[in-house]
């Protein structure tokens, strides 16, 4: 009887140990809180050649070279001018005053300005150049190209601009690899009413039962 018991205990003990050993071998690394793979990630600081990904095609939309540098040198932004209906503005806005009747309502009547806080909403002239209408003007009085409006927006929205330069605000166009092509401020935001309008979501999640 006693030997029998010893046998059982032996089997159980031996088997249990074997099981435990196999499981422990399996566990090994990856224990929570110990060391993170992020250490490996952060240790990689040699630049990655984004042109190594050969399937990347040039962006379809027109782009311009950004007049800023950040995050690995030069980059491209999506151009703006083509999207402006009546560009070039100087075809109407010459040195002479525009004297057509209802000219503003006919040409820019669709523009609703909803930019800036209540009580201190912006006026056209706060961004548009007072004389050379083919350009914008920043607070220092220098001309800003429509394709490079980020130079103007960034005066107030400097936090957003910093994030945009780094890649935490806005987005890249189509490719994560290849030459860096990012959306311009005006690609997503309507400069006259930059906040996104409320709307219904594109879809919904179905309840499962």
């Amino acid at each position, binding site marked *: 009887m006693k030997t029998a018991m010893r046998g059982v205990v032996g089997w159980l003990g031996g088997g249990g140990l074997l099981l435990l050993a196999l499981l422990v071998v399996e566990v090994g690394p*990856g*224990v*929570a*809180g110990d060391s*993170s*793979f*992020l250490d490996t*990630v952060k240790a*990689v*600081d*040699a*630049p*990655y050649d*984004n042109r*190594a*990904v050969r*399937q*990347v095609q040039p962006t379809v939309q027109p782009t311009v070279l950004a007049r800023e540098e950040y*995050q*690995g040198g030069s980059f491209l932004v999506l151009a703006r001018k083509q999207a402006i209906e009546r560009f070039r503005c100087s075809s109407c806005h010459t040195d002479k005053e525009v004297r057509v009747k209802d000219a503003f309502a006919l040409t820019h009547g669709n523009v609703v300005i909803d930019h800036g806080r209540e009580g201190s909403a912006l006026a056209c002239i706060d961004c548009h150049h007072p004389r050379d209408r083919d350009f914008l003007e920043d607070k220092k009085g220098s001309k800003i190209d429509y394709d490079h409006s980020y130079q103007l927006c960034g005066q107030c929205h400097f*936090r957003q601009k910093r*994030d945009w330069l*780094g*890649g*935490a*605000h*806005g*987005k*890249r166009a*189509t*490719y*994560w*690899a*290849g030459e860096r092509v990012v*959306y311009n401020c005006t690609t*997503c935001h309507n400069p006259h009413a930059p906040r*996104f309008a*409320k*709307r*219904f*979501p*594109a*879809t*919904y*999640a*179905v*309840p499962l039962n």
Partner: protein
Amino acid sequence: MNLPYDDQEKQQEHHESVAAPGEKKCSRRAFLKNLSIGAAAASAALVTGCVPGADAATNEELRLRWQEFFKKNYQLMTEEEKAGTVTRLERLAALRDGLELQIGSEPPLPRVLYGYAFNITRCEGFMECVTACVKENNLDRKTNTQYIRIFEMEPGQLDPSTGDGQYFHEVPVDNKFYMGTQCFHCENPPCTKACPTRATWKEPDGIVVVDYDWCIGCRYCQAACPYYGRRFNWGRAEIPKEEITTRQHYLGNRLRPVGKMEKCTFCIQRTRKGKLPACVEACPTGSRVFGNLFDPNSEIRYVLKHKKVFRMKEELGTEPKFWYFID
């Protein structure tokens, strides 16, 4: 591809008449006859449901389907074998459904580890990402399978279980924020550890993939996932033929057979060609950041370095490669 539901109901009726013959008080012989008819019907249904070539129309299809049945796990295939199965799958799709597919088997890019960040300040809950994902990844339209969930969150709480994942009203609602979830492509994934057949694994570029043809459909990985990142093909997926995305990847958006696990693959068919995942491309607010963690100049590395980030259920040690951040 449509499920013949009427047919099923008819069969159900038929089955009832077989299963309850005792009420009619028939003779034992007639009863046994009924029984054998029932058994024959059932086994015929079983055969068409199970055997790979049972409803093949041509000899070529029959041959291809048996070859497909006995192929190896994708991880063990040589390059030729990968090319072979991809060609067979394309040919089968052409034979069966008249589809012209381009299925790829692009390998992982060297020195690339994908990472993803989600800006909970910026997301406004428009769910454009969800529709783009459904379209790109050929998700089942009948049961409305979605890899991405967006939760409308009350301020003061960060756990999606406190949010509403089924909202449908004008968004964004004032004083609420939106939080997206999907497969987080953990560096230490509990799902791949659970799989009994190694049908799911983490690729060298960090994407957790499923070999749909090697999966046995036990759903242990689904139970093991702490993020509800996996979906199962409970029935045959239904996608309108004209809406099928034809550029596919073996491990990505190719049409999944019934009874297999599927999941977000960071759009492997796109990302391995340098493109952004469909959700990132579709996002109208720029809340989604995707890139190479091994590129010190990438946007994702910028976010990790300069933003306050957190990951969901970090205490589990799963090391998701998906970070939430705040402007």
